């Protein structure tokens, strides 16, 4: 298991990285390498040029802005997980991180890398969709922002164009009366989910859902924004929630559920309904506690 030959580059500025990505043939960005390196070693992926962005200081910052948390492209998952300020500001991110592999992997894996890799069964892309976050990208033609809802196009396929690299992702900061939960079914802790649900809810003074952000993962070729569930629970209180309807709504729109040796499409649908129901109940319980 040795990678095919490639040239390794380690730029020190974002502009240099963008220049390299624009100019070098068959180039790929390397951050934590938790997905890319195994694929290279298994020779499932071949690139002539790898651009390691971990030497770029500007990408190594995670910061709290007025209403969002901004996480630079080389910030590791562990750095976010261990930062209690960030965990308070975007609790759904903090809640999701323990499900991402195991701690030693999160010491290398980056938040942006997981999102850019766009595995449909991964937690962080779903969290970005649930919270309506934003991906900041850059290239030699300039910077642009891509809303989460437009970023994920398919399995390992995003709206990033040739020559673009992810500079940061932004997650909106949670309100005071909010609750969140990540529920998933995986064969073992840390595995990609067979089906999962990430839920963020905010309630009003009466304990009714004022706003929610819900996404499903592992059940399609991208994370799925569960708008029907958000509609269903708007204005609802924990006590009068029709939880079976929540599960049904979470899977109602799914028409291309993966079928593999871990679970058939039908079994995934069943599991997705269960995790969505449980995550909504958990999040709402937390918000109204």
């Amino acid at each position, binding site marked *: *298991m*040795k*990678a*095919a*030959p490639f040239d390794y580059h380690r730029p020190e500025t974002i502009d240099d990285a963008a220049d390299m990505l624009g100019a070098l043939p068959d180039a790929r960005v390397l951050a934590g390498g938790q997905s890319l390196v*195994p694929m290279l070693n*298994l*020779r499932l992926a071949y690139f002539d040029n790898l651009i390691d962005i971990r030497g770029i200081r500007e990408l190594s910052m995670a910061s709290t802005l007025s209403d969002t948390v901004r996480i630079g492209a080389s910030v590791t998952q562990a750095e976010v997980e261990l930062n209690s300020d960030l965990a308070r500001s975007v609790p759904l991110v903090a809640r999701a991180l323990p499900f991402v592999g*195991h701690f030693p992997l999160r010491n290398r894996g980056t938040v942006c890398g997981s999102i850019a890799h766009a595995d449909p069964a991964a937690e962080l892309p779903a969290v970005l969709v649930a919270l309506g976050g934003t991906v900041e990208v850059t290239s030699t033609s300039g910077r642009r922002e891509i809303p989460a809802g437009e970023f994920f196009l398919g399995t390992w396929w995003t709206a990033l164009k040739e020559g673009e690299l992810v500079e940061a992702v932004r997650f909106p900061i949670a309100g005071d009366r909010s609750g969140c939960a990540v529920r998933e*079914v995986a*064969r*073992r*802790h*840390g*595995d*990609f989910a*067979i089906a999962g649900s990430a839920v963020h809810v905010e309630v009003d003074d009466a304990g009714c859902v004022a706003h929610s952000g819900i996404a499903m993962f592992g059940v399609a070729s991208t994370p799925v924004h569960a708008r029907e569930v958000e509609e269903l629970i708007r204005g609802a209180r924990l006590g009068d929630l029709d939880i079976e309807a929540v599960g049904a709504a979470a899977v109602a729109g799914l028409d291309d559920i993966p079928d593999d*040796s*871990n*679970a*058939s499409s039908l*079994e995934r649908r*069943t*599991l997705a309904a*269960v*995790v969505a129901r449980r995550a909504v109940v958990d999040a709402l319980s937390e918000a109204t506690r």
Partner: protein
Amino acid sequence: MLHACFVRSPLARARIASVDVEKACAVAGVRGVLTGADINGEVVDLWYSQVGPDVPRTPLPPLAEGEVRFAGDPVALVVADDRYVAEDAAELVAVDYEPLDAVVDLHAALDSDSLVHEGWAGNVCAELATPTDHLAEAFANAAHVVETEIHQQAYVACPLETRGLVVEWSPADGSLSVWASSQSPHDFRQFASRLLGVAEHKIRVICQDTGGGFGQKINAHREDIVLLLAARHFPAPLKYIEDRRENLMASSSRRESGRVRMALNAEGVVQAATIDHLSNAGAYPIPYPLISSAAVGAIFPGPLKYQLGAFSTKCVFTNTPGLTAYRGPWEFETLAREVSLDAAARQIGVDPAELRRRNMLSRHDLPHTNALGMTLTDMTPLETLELALEAVEYEVFRQEQDEARAQGRYLGIGISSYVEPTTTNMPHHGSEGATIRVEPSGTVNVYLAGGSAGNSLETTAIQLTADALDVDVGVVNTVQGDTALTPFGSGTAGSRSGSMVAGAIRETAAILRNRIAEVAADALGVRAEVIEVAGGSAFVEANPINALTLAEVAHHAYFGKDAAGGLEASARYHTQAPNLWANASHICTVEVDIETGLVRILRYVVAEDCGPMINPNVVEGQIAGGVVQGIGGALLEHFEWDVDGNPLATTFVDYLLPSTTDVPIIEYLHMEGSPGPGPGGFKGVGEGGAIGAPAAVANAVADALSPFGVELRELPLSPATLLRHLADGGAG
């Protein structure tokens, strides 16, 4: 050092129309590419010591020639200056495959028109059946006849250190050095000697710190054979380290299936039982697989008393990796029997613990000749069951289970008891040698064949030697795993090392103690008979003040007037009992989430009897490792192929080993109640954990789901499998 990499078949079955190595050979840094045509003809004699030369020899070409027979079948060997270059070049070896229909399913293989190997009709590699006529009456008169079918998925040994070796041929003196990852250095040497036609004493095999074997590394595999043959083609040491994908795809696959029939009387006492067993031989089993298959049949009665039994077994060729030993190679007997007992308990409405009480042998029933003619001795089956039941507070659990069910939570408890023949006296495994040398300084070295792959054989040997000579463990060192330095022994296999090494050390230390006494007597001017050897010194009991330390004795032995004798001894131990029976009862409790199909293990209790423990840490370590592998087999691990024989789990992303977060604290109870007939009463304990665990977990899950009328028939018990069973309900 040169580095090797295999070109492997991407197809499960195909004709090889051509192999073109030209482009690969042209890569800078490539030293050569070998194909079957280049080296297969160099094999002088190929058979395995464990089974001898007289069993049928199943096909075993070093490299595939003419046809590939599983996805992963080695077709060519690329040798280059480093492994990167070797892998680059391997991609350029152009093999023209003409796909053929692959034989994958175990049952379908028997009726398939396609043959894995020409001349092996019905894809039957080996078969054996005992008469059944004498059972007809028992089944006709039975109050209950219970029939169960169980399928055990392919799951593999997964040593964390994969297979691999370094070979170095020295043309000047015609000698070969091998650094191997093997459980049996001396057997590896014998094997290489036969294979190459090179005299045994011209081959040196060194095995140090092997990172796991679990049976996979008892015998040389085709990759080892190819490297041994390739050694003479290259003027430098040649290294091959298997990668994980290769280990999963190509190292081995155990996959079994069985149909059990049990006849019980109205009291729930088993009167007769049969098992019809199928075992996957794969394409290239190593060694001849009937040995372990027959053991499944012969040990199937396990700890049960019934006297009427029969079995049939077939080993079936398929286009999958070849069967090799995996920790408790006959484990299927325990899975099939214990799952059937629980099915019987549910069918006739008796508690599964109670059903076992009515059927299991106690120490007072032994010796006992089982229904297939095996004589069981020196065990505590019923006693370990009672011990485990007490530890797990069985009755209390049943109450908790009722209360939980009332709240919609599903708890289950599973029992699995087994008896295990350890330390056989089969010719190749029946003896073991040791050399113990007191060095001139008084420190001690004990030389043993070794083959430890994480079995703590080093600790065990040092401890046994220190005890036998009555010296501090701190002054003893051990040298193992080098055929040039150590006495012959057949390595770690069949849970033999503890007892055999104890025997070898006992025999050797007895001689050495006499020699110590002789030297000390000479130095002290007394008769040897009055010398005591104890506490690290030699002395006359009446006059301990004049005691000689071992260092002083050694000084006399090497530099005194009788220096011809030195201070070392060698001896061999030959075990007489056909085997040493060990036994255990495992009890597992689980909670099943019926909405997700996820299983959480709550408690895991092992009550075992391996005789007196040489070292409890080693015993518990062995049990823990085996239990974890069994849990993996019950819940997670699945080396699966699609219908065309393509492997679906070729990395640890898909081949799911239990990790530390997936296994419970294992609770150990040691009976030490029935010493075996071997040295110290010690019995084997290396494999039992893996034998007992799959059935304990499976029974616990089935027990949890019993309110739904679910009968589980296949492993692993994945969430999807359990959801399917729950959806089907009683249809199971």
